[in-house]
């Protein structure tokens, strides 16, 4: 891995060790991209000396959505309902605007059942770092295609996907999201950099992270699938057998592209934005996404940035003090006020 681990015992600015940012042991499959992302969150939370009690972790339902249990044990968290995390995030951040909300969702969670909530959250500019752990399948329900799966993709269990993918970054851009980025779970350097940037953004920050599912990407047609898959093709028709895999990692420079072999032997092309790219040009961002889509590449990096829009608590003109901290006398009007009103109704 490219990131250097600091010595175990060191502490950050607020005196916490790296271990203080850990979660419970992951129950995901070995090698799952989602675990890498959790590791990145732990890492940047430590680096940035985030105060755990000030962070909330939010998710929907899915393998990806399980991960908030696997980082930041000292932060409040919830697994919400499938596809409906955005609304809970909206409520929670209105209730307490001081909290840093980190949301983790899957492509099924966000792109299928949750698409409406996602887009309306973006529109409202709810202050949340919204991470999509995008593997193109429903991991937890065993490998059906999600709405981000590529057209023409063939999976052993799910068959052929004949529908075009929904590009969640593109959706975010055209609906006014002020921070839209894409990365790859196995690129720790970039994921961490983007996470740090996202955390400093005021409104909704969307991070679409390609995060391979090691269990349900066994493409039987692929000429380069793992040898066990080839040799024991029939054997793996036993649904309950999930081989252990190694995590895929990459490290490549800005402005270059790299081709990654996935667990199923297929390839995806990642293209990192170079330093000259201007992420504040909305129109350029749209073009970029559309052409990448045509070329079947994934553009990685910060795709669009617009710090101009007020976030929802600002739009709602909420006081600086979080609503949940207002004392009773601020939220229950006086006896006199009621009496006056009553008199006006007599």
């Amino acid at each position, binding site marked *: 891995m490219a990131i250097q681990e600091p010595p175990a015992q060191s502490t950050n600015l607020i005196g916490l060790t790296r271990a203080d940012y850990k979660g419970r042991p992951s129950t995901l499959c070995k090698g799952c991209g989602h675990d890498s992302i959790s590791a990145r969150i732990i890492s940047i939370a430590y680096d940035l000396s985030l105060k755990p009690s000030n962070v909330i972790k939010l998710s929907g339902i899915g393998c990806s959505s399980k991960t908030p249990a696997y980082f930041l044990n000292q932060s409040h968290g*919830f697994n919400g309902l499938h596809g*409906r995390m955005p609304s809970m995030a909206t409520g929670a951040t209105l209730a307490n605007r001081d909290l840093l909300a980190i949301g983790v969702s899957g492509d099924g969670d966000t792109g299928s059942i949750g698409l409406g909530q996602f887009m309306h959250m973006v529109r409202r500019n709810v202050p949340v770092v919204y991470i999509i752990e995008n593997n193109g399948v429903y991991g937890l329900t065993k490998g059906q295609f999600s709405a981000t799966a590529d057209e023409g993709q063939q999976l052993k269990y799910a068959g052929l996907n004949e529908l075009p993918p929904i590009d969640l970054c593109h959706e975010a851009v055209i609906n006014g999201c002020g921070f839209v980025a894409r990365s790859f779970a196995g690129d720790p350097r970039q994921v961490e950099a983007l996470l740090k940037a996202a955390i400093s953004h005021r409104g909704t920050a969307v991070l679409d992270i390609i995060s391979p599912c090691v269990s349900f990407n066994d493409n039987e047609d692929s000429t380069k699938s793992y040898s066990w898959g080839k040799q024991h093709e029939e054997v793996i028709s036993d649904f309950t057998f999930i081989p252990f895999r190694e995590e895929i990692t990459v490290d490549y420079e800005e402005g270059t592209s790299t081709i990654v072999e996935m667990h199923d032997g297929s390839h995806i092309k990642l293209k990192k934005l170079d330093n000259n790219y201007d992420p504040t040009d909305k129109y350029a961002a749209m073009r970029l996404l559309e052409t990448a889509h045509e070329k079947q590449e994934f553009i990685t990096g910060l795709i669009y940035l617009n710090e101009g829009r007020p976030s929802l608590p600002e739009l709602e003109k909420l*006081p600086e003090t979080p609503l949940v901290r207002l004392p009773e006398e601020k939220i229950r009007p006086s006896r006199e006020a009621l009496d006056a009103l009553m008199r006006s109704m007599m």
Partner: protein
Amino acid sequence: MSITSVQRGVRPTDIEDSPAGVNNFTIVAATVNGSGSQTANNCLLRALFKMGIPVSGKNIFPSNIQGLPTWFSIRASKDGFTARRETAEIVVALNRQTAAEDIAGVAPGGVVIYPTEWKLNEDRPDITYYSLPVQQMAKDSGASTEMRPYVANMVYVGALTELLGIEVEEIKAALSDHFHGKQKPIDLNFGVVQAAIDYTKQNITKRDPFRVERMNANTGKIIINGNSAGALGSVFGGFTVAAWYPITPSTSLVDALNDYAKKLRVDENGKATYAIIQAEDEIAAIGMVVGAGWAGARAMTSTSGPGISLMTEYAGYAYFTEIPAVIWDIMRMGPSTGLPTRVSQGDVLMAYYLGHGDTRQICLLPGSMEECFECGWTAFDLAERLQTPVFVLSDLDLGMNLWMSQPFAYPEKPMDRGKVLSAEDLNRLGGFHRYEDVDGDGIGYRTIPGTDHPLAAYFTRGSGHNKEAQYTERPDEWEENLARLARKHEFARTIMPKPVIDEVAGAEIAIIAYGSSDPGVVEARSMLAAKGVKTSYLRMRALPTTKEQREFADRYQRIYVVENNFDGQMCRILQSEEPEHATRFRSIAKCDGLPLTGRWIAQSILEQEQ
């Protein structure tokens, strides 16, 4: 359809509506919606109210914006009854489309007022016809062509003022009140009223027995609708986050919430001490409420049947994760889209069991304006105390119609924020288990996100969890958790609002009702008493029921459960809550979109008793 088409079902009857006369009659104004008759109707109602005569007003309106028939009925009742009455003595027929049916529905001996321009055949010898040149007078008012249908309504206000002997000053005061003292519209409208009074004086000879006389029954009372009352209660209950999606008849609750909050809940820096979000649908609305409740806010939503259906999954989530939330259901006719502008009490069964798996939700059943207000704040106290969603089951009749009420009492108790641990508590305790039943009431302690303590955090999930809030698939832990939730449900019985009980010496039978069925039951009891049938009465105010209710049922052999739905939903619930009384409970249920009348209730009970 006309207002009177409901009478089609009326059987030959022992029970009659109370005889009409001075301060005792019902006026129905039949107009076209979008024509602005509400100003006229409110004005009349308010003038009667100010004359000290008990009144109530009901709007029966179509589910569209403009051009369809609408009826507003004003009941004046010297005895103080406020239920819907089946008889209309005075019908103002301003809608050509429904005129024939509207006039056919006037009670024998009654009155009809209609525009001279219609050139009606006055062919019912048993009623009195008065006609006014409504269209001409609207024209003469000087109002623009567009405004004329609106102004025309003021003509009947004037005519009735003269015919019934309403005090003109009270009409003027009502107009002033309606237009917040703005002189221009007051003058425009009152000009028409005055012209109509003058016309009536000069051209119409009164030939009917209906009139009003100043009384003294309303001193200190207010007039309001339940949605405003509920909104006001919520403002005083310290709501901080409201999320909603427009739906009739619940929208006006949030409109009122907006209005009151703008007035009462802005801080010294001009900042709102609340947020009201129009969500993209009801799933999002409840999601926002649950998120806010989880984060420690007093959060609420308001909706109606279709919205409740959409909230099912989240309601189950909040129940199982034990997150406070307040959900107003302003019930309208279902199933499905049903009749958005008609009342029913048809969501009771669903709300009580809302959610898949084993769920039983907390429901409040307000039955008056004061209770709508009270539920506004007590719902939060209960939701936070019990850490669970609280449903307030109001309905269109309570919510959108006009009712007299005692002024609302300021909440005497400080807010009950329930079992919340602060950082100091955690220091003292050295930690906590989110779902541990420390106190034996089934309720665990929670912490609010942002609590500055390393042991404050816990993880909320709709999946199986143990008392440490960790994921578990262990059978024993699953059962323990459900058993604790059942304990909490039983504990809730001890703190729910108790039923209002009126036991009559010598009564052999009893009535159970709730919500907007109450006014009808009140009147029915007096009608039954007049026939020599004594009844005791229990008005429910909550589910689950308290022990008082069971004890009450112990004492009567026949208990009529009166409600405004088709399947007798509350009766079904009670039969399974109290199997030992199952055969005592007899369902008196009707569901035609209109509020239950005293006559129908009394008649139905009488038939079963005979």
